[in-house]
């Protein structure tokens, strides 16, 4: 009887997943159907959080925290640090978005390529799953207040460099889709 319940639950769960995927596909596809336009790459929001890196870096810097703790009244300093953590969490969400955009760019290029390497695709899938896992852990530590904010600063620098390179690559791919590609893609 246990097997019966397990199979019934499995079938119901599969149906639920399918309905979710169908409705998700409907929302994301909009009017487009069975098509993917290379010019769509242009519309991909590439690393928009990169623009705020200097401010975030300043806000997360150790010097800034030390200054606050030394000069501001204890209550104000505490509140400021709490708010900085909230900003750091929002920023982490932004990093997540940037990562997703980069991964999505990879998937779009794969979809539009005549040949695809299963090794590269599997690697990207594993990296995406890993990122989600690590993101949750970092987010939890940040929320619990056990992650020093200045460590996040190292990451912001990295994302900045990657975002700049990806912006260049996307511009070149968009140019290619319009028949204007001339340069080398990889920096």
């Amino acid at each position, binding site marked *: *009887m246990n097997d*019966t319940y397990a*199979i*019934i639950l*499995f*079938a*119901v769960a*599969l*149906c639920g997943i*399918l309905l979710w*995927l*169908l409705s998700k*596909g409907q929302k*994301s*596809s909009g009017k487009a*159907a*069975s*098509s*993917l336009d*290379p010019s769509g790459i242009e519309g991909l929001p590439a690393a928009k959080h990169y623009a705020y890196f200097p401010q975030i870096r300043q806000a997360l810097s150790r010097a800034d925290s030390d200054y606050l703790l030394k000069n501001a009244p204890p209550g104000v300093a505490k509140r400021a640090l709490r708010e900085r953590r909230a900003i750091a969490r929002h920023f982490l969400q932004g990093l997540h978005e940037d*990562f997703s955009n*980069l*991964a999505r760019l*990879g*998937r*779009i*290029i*794969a*979809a*539009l*390529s*005549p*040949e*695809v*390497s299963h090794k*590269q695709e599997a*690697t*990207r*899938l594993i*990296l*995406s799953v*890993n*990122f989600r896992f*690590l993101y949750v852990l*970092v987010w939890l*530590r940040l929320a619990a207040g056990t*992650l020093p904010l200045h460590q*996040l600063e190292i*990451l912001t620098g*990295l*994302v900045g460099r*990657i975002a700049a*390179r*990806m912006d260049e*690559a996307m511009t070149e*791919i968009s140019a*290619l*889709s319009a028949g204007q590609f001339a340069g080398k*893609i*990889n920096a």
Partner: protein
Amino acid sequence: MNRLEIFLSLTSLLFQILLCGFVFVRKAHRILPLFVTFVYVVLASTICLFLTSQYFGFKSSLLYYVFWAALFLFVASRSLAIAELCRYGLRKYRGIWALVWRALTALSMLLVAHAAISAWGQPNGIAIYWTSFARDFALASLIIIAVLFLFLNYYGLALDDLPKLVALGICFTCAVDAIGNTILLNSFKGYLFPWFLESQKALWPSMEALVRRVDDVWSAVHLIAFMISIGIWCYALRKPLVQPTESPALLPAHIYGEMSPAINTHLATFNQRLAELLKP
């Protein structure tokens, strides 16, 4: 057959004729030929079953074998329609299709083998064997369609309305088949098991009413579910079909070769840095 079953069978036949009419008028064979074959096979099987029951009676052994043969045809043609949906959804994206078809074929073979092995171990009786096979096949079909949609979602691709609704209808019949056959199989292998044993022949007259009742309930559920699916397919075919969109312009092959490893390296660096953040 009780009155409800006769009513449901006739309504189902009408629905099937209506669907065949829609399929013919909309020239659906130009887009999904194997799905159209499935629709015609279902109608032909229903007519064949009806004629056999009329000429040879409901209790004839011929009807019994024709029923299971029709079920085999139903399952086989539905599987081909699912394979066609997979090909239709991804064939325009050559690289992805080359990657996915192998995965889907391997998965299908694994699931079919599992269904065959699982059914093989069942006790004697074509009914138990085929109910088990049909249950596992329905589950396998659900898994294949779910994997197809996962791939489509992962790569941000979308299906046209017709294949999407065809998939929805197939999923609905498969889900009802999987659940219904599981319950039926449980009854066959449980309290109805003596019905399949020659040694328990003495019990058969007292069990007949119960077996017929179980059969009636399952037939009614199956017919209603199938009519809902036919309704979904008729809805998909209510308007003239739009010609499938042209294949997208693909990028030169070297772009993927250069960009994909670079993107993966960057993604790996993201992960590395995030992991470093977590180190004490």
